[in-house]
């Protein structure tokens, strides 16, 4: 199922890329492309809807340049735009720290999560168990996690972190993030590995490659597209995750971006300009990164639709 999901996402992306860039009109398998009567109206509608969707983000960006006292009285005035809000926020908001924490947590959990998922998926599809039933049971066992809404885990994991003495450290969220990523990663990876041609492996074995050679030097390099999907999906998850960090990280010095966002309301209680500048400062990097990797993010997340 998942492999198909991923494939459909990637193929549609590839078609889009080839379609919109080449000057020569490529024959695209499109439905209903005859008669474009009110082409202008259709375009106008598309632009209007897009504008309305983007409006909330434009709005807070605009307000972040306003003086705090005019935000309440005359939010539409453009006379007195100022950078004061940003100056104030940058002095109080540990932006670099927040991003550093998030990146540390993301790198740790995504690398380990992808690695262990790859290893187990390789074993489940490319290695031969003495008893086949064990193999299919293990796959089912790992995939069963897909049916569990992660909120169920919050309290038990909190207790577990306390018991293991890792509560309030990076590890407190890194380990749950890895565990939570395993079912989805395994789903995509086993789907992909199943269709992997065994000739490559056999040739490698003839050449005297051992298990780890095959795993890391033969199979892994061919999996770049699916690994990219997994990495993107997991990174977006970690950047956006809030419930776990809100419970498992109590030290402000370890706060991630989304944890910091939740505290803006408290930090800048009456300083609306400050709040909006802070929100913009978090929003813009996210949108900038998205703009760069846009195609891959969309493909990755539609593939990740399984997990949602």
């Amino acid at each position, binding site marked *: 199922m998942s492999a198909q999901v991923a494939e459909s996402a990637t193929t549609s992306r590839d078609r889009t890329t080839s379609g919109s860039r080449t000057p020569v009109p490529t024959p695209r398998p499109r439905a209903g492309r005859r008669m474009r009567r009110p082409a202008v109206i259709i*375009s106008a509608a*598309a632009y209007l809807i897009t504008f309305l969707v983007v409006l909330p983000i434009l709005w807070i960006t605009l307000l972040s340049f306003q003086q705090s006292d005019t935000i309440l009285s005359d939010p539409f005035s453009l006379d007195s735009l100022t950078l004061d809000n940003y100056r104030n926020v940058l002095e109080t908001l540990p932006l670099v720290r927040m991003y550093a924490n998030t990146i540390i947590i993301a790198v740790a959990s995504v690398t380990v999560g992808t690695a262990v998922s790859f290893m187990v998926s390789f074993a489940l599809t490319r290695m031969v168990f003495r008893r086949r039933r064990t193999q299919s049971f293990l796959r089912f066992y790992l995939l069963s996690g897909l049916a569990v*809404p992660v909120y169920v885990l919050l309290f038990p994991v909190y207790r577990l972190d306390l018991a293991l003495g890792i509560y309030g450290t990076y590890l407190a969220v890194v380990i749950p993030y890895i565990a939570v990523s395993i079912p989805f990663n395994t789903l995509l990876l086993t789907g992909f590995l199943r269709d992997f041609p065994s000739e490559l492996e056999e040739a490698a074995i003839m050449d005297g490659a051992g298990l780890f050679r095959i795993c890391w030097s033969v199979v892994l390099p061919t999996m770049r597209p699916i690994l990219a999907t997994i990495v993107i999906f997991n990174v977006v998850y970690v950047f956006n995750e809030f419930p776990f960090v809100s419970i498992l990280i109590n030290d402000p010095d370890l706060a991630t971006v989304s944890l910091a966002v939740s505290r803006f309301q408290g930090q800048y209680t009456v300083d609306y300009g400050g709040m909006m500048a802070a929100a913009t400062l978090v929003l813009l990097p996210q949108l900038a990164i998205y703009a760069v990797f846009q195609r891959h993010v969309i493909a990755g997340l539609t593939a990740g639709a399984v997990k949602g």
Partner: protein
Amino acid sequence: MVWVSSPWKIALMVFPAFILFTAFFIYPVVYAGGYSLTDAAGFSGADFIGLDNYLALGEDPFFRRSVTNTLLILVLSVTFLVPASFGLALLMQQRVRAAGALRALLFGPAIVAPILVGLVWVFILDPRVGLLNHLLEPLGIPPVQWIGGDSLAPYSIAVVFIWASVGFAMTIFYAGLRLLPAEVMEASSLDGASRWQQLRYVTIPMMRETIGIVSLLLITNVFKIFELVYMLTGGGPVHSSETLVSYMYFVTFTDQRYGSGMAIAMVVFVIGALTSLAYLTLSRRGRLA
């Protein structure tokens, strides 16, 4: 590979994921299930009380409110979001200049952290500083309590949820539309089908599975709504705008009634398991998701 791999090699490959997953996923679910049958709260011990927590939920007006709110958001989202995003996908398929850029912009909200989505919308819905009331003011409409008040909050949460999901749903529909066989569409237009007939009798029937999958995804996502409530209303006033998950969070972590909290968690778990099951059956039948 046609020979049996050596057990220690298999073990080496399987164990890291297996242990992490068992300890931090399966064990917590079992633990939550067990806790839901006890009266654990605050610093006191936990005594087995059977299904009492579940029975008490039936009596809990706040829990009932959180269920109705979640269902309200669910109904609103599915009835508006599915047709809207499908229509949008159809629109984006037309010859629109820079359609790729528009699609990317529409998808944007889906990558913004939910907690930030909530914060952005505070600035729009807030009765005092919000954009919406400022826009309504010249029309002579007095300030509306979109999120602070008692009655409108769940509707506002639904609107924000729709905003955050429309581009995502559109993208899946769009991918589905592109995979429709071009020959069938051409044949139907050669047969003289009008655009409406083509949509009604060819496109929609062929998209049935995608529609089902998008709907199910939205349903699972509605049952996960938490950050929006947390940011927009904090569940208040007096728990009138809680969703299932936000109420579970409150009961467990703020009120520290761990037993009841885990009973709610188990309700969420069962709903999640059922929708996943429906999703699996549906996507196994279709080739597309």
